[in-house]
């Protein structure tokens, strides 16, 4: 019995360029970093065609296991988790410092 091999995803789904409106290096570079960290992503890069154009051209090419859109979605979810953790860490640290200052005064 031969094991059925999953057909590779078509190129039209694994190699895509997105135009993200009203965004800049803030989101572009953060997502590029996270997509670079994804082992299923072959290539990722972004460019802002012109400084007065508020649009990011985002190129993603995957190795074929996942679609480019799925990779981008994953990067967004990862970034949200990072944000949540950063916020929580800051809240805890502020709490620690402020309660420490209160202890000093009493």
């Amino acid at each position, binding site marked *: 019995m031969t094991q059925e091999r999953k057909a590779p995803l078509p190129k039209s789904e694994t190699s895509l360029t997105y135009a993200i409106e009203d965004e800049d290096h803030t989101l572009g570079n953060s997502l590029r970093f996270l997509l*670079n960290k994804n082992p299923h992503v072959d290539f990722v890069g972004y460019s802002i065609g012109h400084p007065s154009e508020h649009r990011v051209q985002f190129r993603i090419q995957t190795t074929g296991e996942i679609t480019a859109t799925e990779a981008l979605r994953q990067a967004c979810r990862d970034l949200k988790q990072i944000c949540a*953790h950063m916020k929580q860490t800051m809240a805890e640290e502020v709490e620690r410092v402020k309660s420490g200052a209160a202890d000093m005064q009493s």
Partner: protein
Amino acid sequence: MICGPDLSQHTSTVTSANIYMGLGIDNSWSQEQFEEDFSIHINSIDEHDIEFDMRHVDPSIANAVRRILISEVPTMAIEHVFFVNNTSIITEEVLAHRLGLVPIKVDPALFEDKTNECSPNERNTVVLKLKVDCKRQGEEIINEKVYSGQLQWLPEGSEMPEETTCRFARSQAGAIPGGVDLVHDNILLAKMRPGQSIELEAHCIKGVGSEHAKWSPVGTAWYRLHPELEVLQAITGLMADEIVALCPGLFVMEGSGEQRQAKVTSARGNEMQLEKVRRLLSEEEWAKYLQLRKRKEHFIFTIQSTGALAPETLFMRAVDKLADKCDTLLGRL
């Protein structure tokens, strides 16, 4: 990162997931690893400023937070000024511009964005009034100088709704905890001579720094990398004398006589001396002994608030904004 006299080396971070595959090391993203490594340590905090160490985060994320702080966290600022009377020598457009830059102490989260189509109301506008007359009182001249503290909050809304089209359905008095105040009462707005007067209404709306710097919630927000000074080979004898004399505080002498040796105390906190060292590195004899480095994952972050919001709150809002951007993009995909 190694900082040379002219250029720095090894400046980029290694982010590719597969780069160490040959060594059997997985460099792909791991939230667990991030949560284990990431840390924040506050060095100093007060009403306006915060300095903290943020470790084990990529520059792309740290920079995103910095950029959002400067240009995308909203505040309230004066946008429309309605002049009833102005007989002072300062022209309306100049005074209106000066008013715009005055920081207003109110939480922007309590307000909606005001688009050009929607008329000003209690949910998107804060109304301030300025009415000053300069006159002589005996020898004294009163109101010769007009200060920001003379701006008066009108919780009931505009006193001339016909002209300003600003109508409040209800008072803001109960809706805004702590009310609306100025961060600084002593900003000089205008100067007058006896007989001159200014009467105006200033309407504040919510905005972001990318539209105009007056809405930026920070004086500025920046980070620098943690410096390190490495002694590559022991500095002894006359060279030790020279370096300790040149960079007091950064280097101390250990031992005495022929055995004396210059040792580094701490690169951090001696930044001025580090700049001298950086210059020395261009001299061949010193380059053999010293190397100036920076830790790529160790950010010393400073946020200077303009006063509307606490600096730690600004950090949280900036991080929230970054998460919002992800949500918006996820919604569009």
